[in-house]
């Protein structure tokens, strides 16, 4: 199956062929590299920009105002913090112009930890991202969702921030993307650039179709009845594994909700599940102070306080000044599978 980087690449190819995407750019996004995670390899409209995040987001804004549907990349979300002001302009332009100027742009950027990235290749961004009001924010955890969300993001007349979990970009999907060849070696032959000289290389693209994942719709990755886990990004497959293991061991029926979209988020899916289970944990990898999961907990307290069988939990990163390179320290700071097991275990065991 395609990995997430290949899925994004195929969605961008579909975008430049059928959805009017004329500019796909950022640092090392064009040939020869095609992106530090190969997500833009072999695309017709991809190009390298100067090393300047402010110019990149400024260019995206201007291109959107000029009627384009640009896709801009910030090489790592860790390097987005010198241009938050312009992301805010992207989010508030429609409102500040009394609805006169739409901003159909996509900003994609790798997020999160798990690749031994040390202090500046491990950042999460959910908290700031969810405060860029007017901007939509998505974060897939599977290749097929990445494909469908990218197509929806391109079609959206609103600015969309597309967060790519670094640790999952090379993870293979479990489902075929519509049009994807069944044999992943064939796909590799077709769309992955060869090592060494790529001067003459051209990709052969499969016949892809217009598959959308609606922005704002979560996915129940594992149905369950005794507890709910709300998660996204790098933590989503981990939560899924834990739920599957608990089920297999007959130790509990856990419903896992993969949010996929942070803004707007699928409140109905969360509320429906929690009303059913009465128990919920919110799991993400950003630091625990002023964490997006805390917003969801607060809203749950507002609307479902008396329906909760146990106190809702948050599992998040520790609020250290950074994420360390040392694996022992990174795994101490960032939530791991054992932490998920512990939290879900406590949640299930909590006397009503």
């Amino acid at each position, binding site marked *: 199956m395609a990995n997430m980087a290949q899925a994004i690449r195929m969605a961008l190819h579909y975008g430049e062929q059928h959805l009017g995407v*004329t500019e796909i750019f950022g640092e090392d996004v064009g040939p020869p590299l095609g992106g530090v995670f190969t997500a833009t390899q072999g695309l017709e409209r991809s*190009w390298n920009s100067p090393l*300047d995040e402010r110019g990149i987001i*400024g260019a995206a804004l201007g291109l959107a105002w000029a009627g384009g549907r640009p896709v801009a990349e910030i090489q790592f979300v860790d390097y987005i913090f010198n241009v938050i002001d312009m992301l805010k302009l992207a989010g508030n332009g429609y409102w*500040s*112009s009394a609805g*006169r*100027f739409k901003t*159909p742009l996509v900003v994609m950027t790798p997020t999160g930890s798990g690749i031994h990235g040390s202090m500046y290749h491990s950042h999460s961004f959910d908290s700031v991202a969810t405060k860029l009001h007017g901007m939509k924010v998505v974060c897939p955890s599977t290749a097929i969702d990445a494909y469908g969300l990218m197509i929806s993001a391109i079609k959206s007349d609103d600015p969309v921030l597309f967060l790519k979990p670094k640790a999952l970009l090379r993870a293979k999907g479990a489902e075929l993307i519509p049009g994807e060849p069944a044999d992943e070696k064939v796909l590799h032959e077709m769309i992955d650039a060869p090592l060494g000289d790529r001067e003459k290389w051209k990709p052969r693209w499969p016949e892809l179709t217009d598959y959308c994942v609606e922005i704002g719709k979560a996915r129940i990755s594992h149905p369950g009845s005794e507890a709910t886990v709300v998660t996204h990004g790098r933590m989503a497959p981990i939560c899924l594994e834990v739920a599957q293991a608990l089920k297999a061991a007959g130790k509990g029926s856990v419903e896992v909700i993969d949010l996929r979209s942070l803004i707007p988020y699928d409140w109905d899916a969360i509320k429906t599940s929690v009303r059913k289970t009465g128990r919920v944990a919110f799991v993400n990898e950003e630091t625990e102070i002023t964490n997006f999961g805390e917003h969801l907990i607060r809203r749950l307290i507002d609307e479902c306080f008396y329906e909760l069988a146990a106190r809702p939990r948050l599992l998040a990163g520790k609020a250290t000044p950074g994420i360390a390179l040392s694996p022992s320290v990174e795994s101490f700071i960032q939530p791991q599978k054992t932490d998920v097991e512990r939290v879900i275990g406590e949640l299930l065991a909590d006397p009503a």
Partner: protein
Amino acid sequence: MPSAKTSSESPQAADPYRKLGAAKLFKIHELMVRARLLEERLIKMSKGGDGFFWIGGPGEEAFNVSLGLQVKKGRGVDHDFLHLHYRSSAIVLAMGAQPIDSLRQMRSVATDPYSKGRSFVNHYAIAEFNIVPVSPTIETQYSTAIGTGIAQARAKTDAVTIVNGGDAGTAEGDFHSCLVWANRPVLPLPILIIVVNNGWGISTKGETQHGERNISDWAKVFPGMPGKTINGNDVAESWGALEEALAYVRKNRKPYLLEARCSRLYGHSSSSGANRIPEADSIEILESAMTSRGIAAPSDFAKVWEREARALDEAHQQVKSEPFPEGDSAWQDVFADGLPPSYPVKGGS
């Protein structure tokens, strides 16, 4: 032969004011008066509680009207894009915007077409004119200009991107980004990069902070990039410089850096009092240039001032009768496809 031709050219014809011609000079004068009276009215409103903060462009009329009249006006990449700041009223009026809409934004009534009562006055957003939303964040327009510049570099057109802002703002990195991106060897951009140098950033004198002799000297970094500094208080000089710069950018599809020295006639904003400051007045300069050449008589000007003032009075009366926005209008224009049903709207619990 050329020498003959030159000598045959009368000093009169060589005079840039006469080159512009009476009709155009009267047109420019009328627009400058309109812009000046508008700004003075906005100041009055701010001081009189008929609105709040004021910031605007009195003093920049000569340069800004000359620019506005030379814009290739319209919508889309085949027309010029404008990335302006909060002193650009005369540009926008010269392009055909109506003073009443600025009064509406000043009073923040529901009919404010630029922001629905959300933004300060002189923060325009006019899709039909390719005037992208004016942002209060200094200098970011120099970064967004890159994007419309790219769109126009790709298109088969002579339309260009025009960005303007102030002198102090050039210390921000966005000015650097604009210079670097506009000069990318693989895709030079058709951008007229304007800096209006009034010598001040709020209360800070430019010469205390900037070691450049001219801001236009930044063009020296790029082989062949034109950079020029002019007197933006003079209509003829402004018109000519803009004509030359726009022609260069339209034809060569490359950037041009133009610095215009202008007065800041009412200080920075209402925060600094918005009182008249004794600096060169571009309208006085134009009027004496026209009278001294016998192109106009003082009485001609009087009529214009009077007519424009009356029009403004009527517009102001009209605006006073218009409703303020409803509080929940805040929920309009959040997302292009409407507010999602489960979006949190209570402001807490």
